[in-house]
């Protein structure tokens, strides 16, 4: 099943400039591994050495943060969309 993944600006160097790409997988972990096959180097930017999602990288499944679902094990269905979004956009106090 091909899932649409939105790529943030800082990672587009790795996707040859594409802001949207497609990847295959039943869950988000598999999608990331498939992305790594197509775009080598992408996985280490969003995952720690042990494969866990980096703390300041958010992945949204449709509009929900996957940390509040089953994280990388979250299963995907037809027409789901993923967005990779760096967490730090600013802040205050």
């Amino acid at each position: 099943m091909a899932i649409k993944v939105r790529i943030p600006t800082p990672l587009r160097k790795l996707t040859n400039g594409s802001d949207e790409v497609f990847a295959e997988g039943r869950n988000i972990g598999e999608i990331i591994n498939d992305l790594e096959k197509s775009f080598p180097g992408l996985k280490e930017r969003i995952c720690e050495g042990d494969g866990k999602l980096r703390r300041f990288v958010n992945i949204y499944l449709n509009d929900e943060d996957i940390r509040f679902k089953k994280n990388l094990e979250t299963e995907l269905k037809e027409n789901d969309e993923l967005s990779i979004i760096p967490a730090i956009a600013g802040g205050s106090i």
Partner: protein
Amino acid sequence: MSFMKGLKCRECGKEYPKEALHVCELCFGPLEVNYEYEKIKEVLTRQTIEKRPPNMWRYKELLPLESDPSVGAQVGFTPLIRAHNLGNALGVRELYIKNDAVNYPTLSFKDRVVSVAISRARELGFKIIACASTGNLANSVAANSAACGMESYVFIPHDLEQTKIMGTLIYGATVVSIKGTYDEVNRLCSEIAGKYGWAFVNINIRPYYAEGSKTFGYEMIEQLGWRFPRHVVVPMAGGSLITKIWKSFNELQKIGLAKNLDSRIYGAQAAGCAPIVNAVKEGSELIRPVRPNTIAKSLAIGNPADGYYSAKVMRDSGGWGECVTDDEIISAMKLLAETEGIFAETAGGVTLGVTKKLIEQGRIPKDESIVVSITGNGLKTQEALYGKLNQVTVINARLAEFDDLVRANGKEYALKS
């Protein structure tokens, strides 16, 4: 002379030059200023500091500027008050208020971060200063930009207190009110910061900006006679202040200006916006964003940038997080005003309300030193008090009517004999 080494990612440790950068390009972690502590230790003594003028720049070796500040030379060194009356009311022995409600020039702790941010932005060659703000930052950016002849753009959520809007417009800032929450304002500002070459103090200048908060902590320690307080209660919005107070304590210990760090740091939020407190109570590392609904608008950040690190400070120091309702916030504002003559903004009500709760819960013992951090002035958030205070008494300008009033209030003992 500057002791600023460069920027460093808090997550992966990758080092960066001292530029307008705030996110690690490798792992997306936040960047932080790194200093040459060994050299600072050689030159900075208690005596050197004590001889300097009473402002935040007495700790300049620990701040991220190449040379002297170009704005805000008078900011900081606000009073640390031994609060006997309030201490009695709460049943505790040693209570202090660190009072940034009287910080110069805009009556909140934000003048500390803004004077660092604007001075650094000017060193980096920026021409326009901007910020996303819940109000206090807006006031400070507008005032300090005006004071050094810079143009400023201030982005605020549309439902801010009128006083905070007037207190920004007066300085000639361009104020853009966004139909959305602070978190939405902030997201938009990140996009603007990416597109326009402006210095957003709390976005692309954030690593420098945030360092200014450390002076709140240094002052507290110096004013206590170079002693660490046992308990410190701090308000949290994005969570930067609490992490920087903890950093300031650790730095003073590292360079030998204070010893035996055993402070516990407690974070305070409003019940209507408590994402960091929720995480601490649940023992979770994850901060679940919330949609804010509280009168403490200066703390109404539902997706706190430094939430993870704030929760860690509370955990690592042995502190805790707690929150209070809007009614408890108002009661605490009144209590502070009636016992100590200090009119703090709603955020101060949050901090004192939480302190009271932590004492009642037994989390803060009654016989150890406690510092309550007051970060903003009540004159700015008067709207929260409408209908919550006693009414004024209206009479005609006749002595007989006043006599009636005195009798009605049972104050005849006050008559001259």
